[in-house]
């Protein structure tokens, strides 16, 4: 022991932190990293749309309806009212991504808290929370979103609320099951045996081990949320024309599918690419977070 006491005061050789390890492993996955870059570009383009020197997304002209992709001045053609597709797609990303991400973030916060309480406390509390959640599970998510949106009335805020309500139950369920499995591990028992209170144990020992999986699950919901939001707009329950939003654009361009199919498919392509990227990124995160690899 006398030999070692010298080094007790010596600086500790710290290995990399957990999150820097995750970032390193994530970067090594070319597909996930590429998708993350693409998503980032989409988000940046949406945020800085007014500064990109694009055409006015609302300015239409009957003289230049449904131009093809590659028409001079309209790199991605024009829509059924002669509006520039490139501008509308970039501006459309603002609402679409906002509507896709916000409900998931809100549901993530609410669902995580509910799931943590249900999973950690267990017993009656668990039964009450989880049976309530099951009630929402009885309805298909699209139907539930439409029903709530319909009851609240059309509009962006209402569709945000309805989508949040739709996503709370699945996130709660995942949070509950992850928490319950962590709770039964010996290190939680060891923490209890050291006399720590429930709040401290959840903060130090449970949260860090459950947030990762819940977060990964939530990212995979973002694509669903985006599609649902687009669906609500498609049904006239979300965004109203002439706002550019991918779901709404897909709906209005539907009539032009035989005239100019490539232009008509563009909003759908954007939804497809974005949700695919979100799924691949969440997949990449899942494997990057697996410490035992």
């Amino acid at each position, binding site marked *: 022991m006398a030999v070692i006491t010298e080094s007790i005061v010596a600086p500790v050789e710290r290995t990399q932190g957990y999150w820097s390890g995750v970032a390193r492993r994530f970067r090594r996955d070319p597909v996930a990293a590429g998708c993350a870059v693409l998503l980032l570009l989409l988000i940046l383009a949406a945020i800085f749309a007014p500064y990109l020197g694009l055409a006015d997304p609302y300015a239409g002209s009957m003289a230049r309806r449904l131009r093809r992709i590659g028409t001079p001045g309209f790199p991605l053609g024009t829509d059924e009212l002669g509006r520039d597709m490139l501008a509308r797609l970039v501006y459309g990303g603002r609402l679409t991504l906002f509507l896709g991400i916000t409900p998931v973030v809100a549901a993530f916060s609410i669902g995580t808290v509910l799931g943590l309480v249900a999973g950690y406390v267990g017993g009656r509390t668990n039964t009450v929370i989880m049976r309530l959640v099951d009630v929402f599970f009885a309805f298909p998510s699209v139907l539930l979103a439409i029903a709530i949106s319909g009851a609240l009335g059309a509009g962006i805020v209402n569709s945000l609320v309805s989508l949040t309500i739709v996503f709370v139950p699945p996130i709660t369920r995942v949070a509950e099951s992850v928490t319950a499995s962590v709770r039964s591990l010996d290190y939680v028992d060891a923490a209890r045996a*050291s006399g720590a209170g429930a709040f401290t144990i959840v903060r130090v020992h449970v949260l860090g081990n459950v947030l990762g999986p819940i977060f990964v699950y939530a990212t995979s919901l973002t694509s669903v949320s985006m599609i649902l939001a687009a669906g609500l707009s498609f049904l006239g329950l979300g965004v109203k024309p002439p706002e550019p939003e991918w779901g709404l654009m897909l709906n209005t361009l539907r009539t032009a599918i035989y005239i100019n199919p490539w232009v008509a498919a563009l909003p759908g392509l954007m939804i497809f690419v974005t949700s695919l990227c979100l799924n691949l990124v969440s997949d990449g995160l899942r494997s990057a977070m697996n410490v035992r690899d």
Partner: protein
Amino acid sequence: MSATDLAPVAPLPDRGGPQQPLVIARDLRRHFPIRSGFFGRRTGTVHAVDGVSFEVVKGETLGIVGESGCGKSTTARLLVGLIALDEGDIIFDGDRLGDQLSLRELRRGVQMVFQDSYASLNPRLTIEDSIAFGPKVHGMGEGQARRRARELLASVGLEPARFAGRYPHELSGGQRQRVNIARALAMAPRLVILDEAVSALDKSVEAQVLNLLADLKEERDLTYVFISHDLNVVRYISDRVMVMYLGEVVEIGPAEAVYARKAHPYTAALFAAMPSMDPDARTEEPPLAGDPPNPIDPPTGCRFHTRCRFAEAVCAAVKPALASVPGEARGGEARAEAHVAACHMLVAGSGHSAAGGAA
């Protein structure tokens, strides 16, 4: 390690004196309800621990052995307060848990080392943080807790500068179990419960950890409850041995006496299942057939009578009490040192043909 340095989580003082057992467990009972159906009706009860009484003398190592499912681990968890008691008393150095001693105080005095060295460490915390957690919960400052963690790492044989900042998955099983021991010691406990603490390690590492445990015990004046299914290890480390079967104690006594005499037929069967090093002493026929009976509906009388070679009518009818094993020199002198077993064959006039009239 100076005493002032560790003030907030200093070892608890001895209260009852050397004669007072560190732990008296009196008639511990823990039943787990089995619920089923929509309303969670109670449809059965697992008698995990059913009337277990024993004492842990200060400074000794009490080994607990028995088949899996016999209630060893439940007993351990009851002692640390991880599971609430249904009935019975735990008296820690003269103070009864509940009215004279809070759960939080009990946990200062009793710590546990778990079997699964990986599951018992938070994968997101460095081992230094894991060890420092307990002392911090009890009000020790950040810097001081870290210093204690590093001192403990050194005393369990892990160089602090190399290991303090590592994560559990960067350590081997033996190293992780050393960390778990350090974490238990961080609370300066008087009793450490080792629940299969070395069972998952390979033999050479197991031996090292056992030696470490022996050193720490001497250094820190600890008392151990050592739970294992490895009878050789229990014999090596224990002063006294307690044999459990289906949630009950069937035999307790000094290790050598129990190993020599095997007063209860179950103890004899259990020890006969121990592989021998001598090829001439092979086990030719299984000492015991079948699985232990279902703890949901345990047999009446002596719980072992369904598998016992010597079972007679009285065994199914009357539950035998722990009685001192006849012919033991130390039997009955000091209670804690007595060799006792729960079998009708040991009690004269019990009605069993092997007991005799006045043995």
